[in-house]
Each structure stands twice: as structure tokens, then as C-alpha cells.
């Protein structure tokens, strides 16, 4: 019997530190016009892992609804990030705070270097990875698309390495697919594209390279119609994954007729 799309996708799972996932789209919870819209977009995207950040409680807004009121923790694995941290020390502190909630020991490790590019600080990222892995965290490390750095992070024990396709929130897509190909060739741990995608075709392209998943936020949250884009991203991700598994034809310089040219 021919497999349906749902059967194909659910049979095709992957693991991060022993935990099983089938959706290959990880979605952020930032920048949405409302928390209600964010919740609808998570649902539409089919995601199983959602990123969140940690910030000070606003003491002037007593009793205000919390982000977690809009995220079903039975359904989604929370992936707290260390966004906004500019040193290993700060990132480690934020990871500790996140784990103290008792909700998740996953961490999307970001140690940034400067505000304009939001590029990672390689040394700080490596240092924090070593520490947090030893402390029992599931570390998913945001990095640039440098294949050497990706290997160093894997050697330090990262459970997933997540090169940026292009700068965070820039919507430029995957700028250096060859670096991603080299990273995929060298690493055994899961490799995800984290950041930079702008549209469903960007996600499909990333998935066709063979990464296990794509993590995005702005591309949905700031689309003109976020809910439509969430559906588009789900489909783009699945299309890219299936296309990768199906195996594309090689590119050729000259035409190859699809119709027999003889025997009219």
C-alpha cells in the first residue's frame, strides 16, 4: 500500500539527546503581535519544540498572563535560549535559571559577540558548551556556519549544533550551503539550521541539504499573515525533507528529453 504523507513524516523521526521528535520545524515565541496569535502559529506549524527566553518579571503588570498560559507543556518541549548573553558566564547563569523552573533541561545556547550582527562569540560558546554539558544540560549550540567551530562544539559534547543560515532575523536564507554540506559531512550529532530563513522555500532548501531540522521565529512572527506563513513553513519543511530523502536528480548542462524523440 502506498504510504500517506502523514505516515511518511511520522515514521521519519530524529533524536536529540535520546528524546524523539518527528516535526522538523522548531519555532520561536518572540515578536508576535499577541500571545493568542503565537499559540495559533505554533499549532499551525506542527512544531514540537518551541524556544523561549528568560527576562525579569515586569513588576508594574501584576497578575498579567504569562507566556506559559499560551503554551501547552504536554505538547511542546520548551527550549529556553540564552539570547542577549555576551559571555559564557552570563549564558551559564541563564541556563541555570531556566532549569530552575523545573520545566526543561534543554538549552539553546547563544553567546553573542555584538548587537549589530548577533554573530556568536566562538570562544564563549565553546566554553559554555563544555560547562553545561558536564552539568547535564541538553545543549543545542547556536554557531556560525564555520565547519571547524561546528566540529569543536561537537567535540565539547554539544547534543546538537545549529549553524545560522544567515544573521538572526535577516531573512536572507542559507547563504553558504557549501559550509553546511561540509558541517553535515563532518558531524555525527544532529545539525539544525538556526536563524536567517525568510520563507518556506528557504526552509525547503535548508532541509534538502540534509539538516535534521530548521529553527525559525521572525519569518513567521513578522510575516504579513503569520498564520498562513506557519502553515507554509510546515509544508516547506516537510517538502524539503521528503525531497532530501527521495534524492534529487543530478544537474546537467544539456537538456534530457522527457518524451521519446523517435518512433512517431
Amino acid at each position, binding site marked *: 500500500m502506498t504510504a500517506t504523507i502523514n505516515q511518511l513524516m511520522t515514521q521519519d523521526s530524529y533524536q536529540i539527546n535520546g528524546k524523539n521528535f518527528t516535526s522538523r520545524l522548531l519555532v*520561536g*515565541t*518572540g*515578536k*508576535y503581535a499577541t*500571545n493568542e496569535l*503565537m499559540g495559533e502559529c505554533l499549532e499551525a506549524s506542527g512544531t514540537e519544540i518551541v*524556544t*523561549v*527566553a*528568560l*527576562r*525579569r*518579571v515586569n*513588576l508594574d503588570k*501584576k*497578575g498579567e498572563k*504569562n*507566556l*506559559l498560559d499560551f503554551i501547552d507543556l504536554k505538547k511542546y518541549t*520548551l527550549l*529556553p*535560549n540564552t*539570547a542577549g548573553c555576551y559571555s559564557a558566564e552570563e549564558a551559564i*547563569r541563564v541556563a*541555570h*535559571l*531556566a532549569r*530552575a*523552573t*523545573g520545566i526543561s533541561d534543554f538549552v539553546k545556547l547563544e553567546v553573542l559577540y555584538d548587537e549589530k550582527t548577533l554573530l556568536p562569540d566562538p570562544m564563549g560558546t565553546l566554553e559554555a558548551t563544555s560547562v553545561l554539558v558536564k552539568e547535564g544540560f541538553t545543549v543545542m549550540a547556536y554557531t556560525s556556519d564555520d565547519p571547524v567551530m561546528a566540529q569543536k562544539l561537537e567535540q565539547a559534547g554539544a547534543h546538537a549544533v545549529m549553524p545560522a543560515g544567515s544573521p*538572526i*532575523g535577516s531573512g536572507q536564507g542559507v547563504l553558504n550551503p557549501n559550509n553546511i554540506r561540509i558541517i553535515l559531512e563532518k558531524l555525527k550529532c544532529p545539525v539544525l539550521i538556526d*536563524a536567517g530563513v525568510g520563507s518556506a522555500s528557504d526552509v525547503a532548501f535548508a532541509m534538502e541539504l540534509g539538516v535534521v531540522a530548521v*529553527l*525559525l*521565529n*521572525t519569518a513567521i512572527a513578522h510575516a504579513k499573515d503569520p498564520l498562513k506563513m506557519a502553515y507554509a513553513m510546515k509544508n516547506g519543511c516537510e517538502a524539503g525533507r521528503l525531497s532530501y530523502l527521495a534524492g534529487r536528480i543530478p544537474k546537467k548542462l544539456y537538456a534530457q528529453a522527457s518524451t521519446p524523440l523517435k518512433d512517431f
Partner: protein
Amino acid sequence: MKILVNGENKELIEQTTLEELIQQLGVRKETVVAEVNRRIVQLDKRSGIQLADGDQVELIQFVGGG
């Protein structure tokens, strides 16, 4: 006594515990992580922490992020 909560000055009566402070501020205790002088205090330990003059308290929660 005077303490700092999330960088803001607060005047508290003596012997206020961390749990009482969180209650007074109207913050939902189960959704917040608390630090006193940069040390995390677990949810079940907050009632045993008496705040002292000059303490720095941080109350942190999950917000949207990518």
C-alpha cells in the same frame, strides 16, 4: 529594611521571607524563578529565606524569544 527587586528599590518590613515578597508583589510563584544575591532559590525553599537589608532579588520568567 531596603532591598532591590529587579533593580528597583523596595521598602520591606523586617523578617519578610522571599515567599512573602513574591506574594506581596502579586507575581505567580510557580511561573517565576527567584535569585537572591545571584543565588537561585528553589520554589520549595523560598519560605525559609528571610531577606536582609541590602539584598538583591531577581525575579525572572519565561517570555517570547527565538
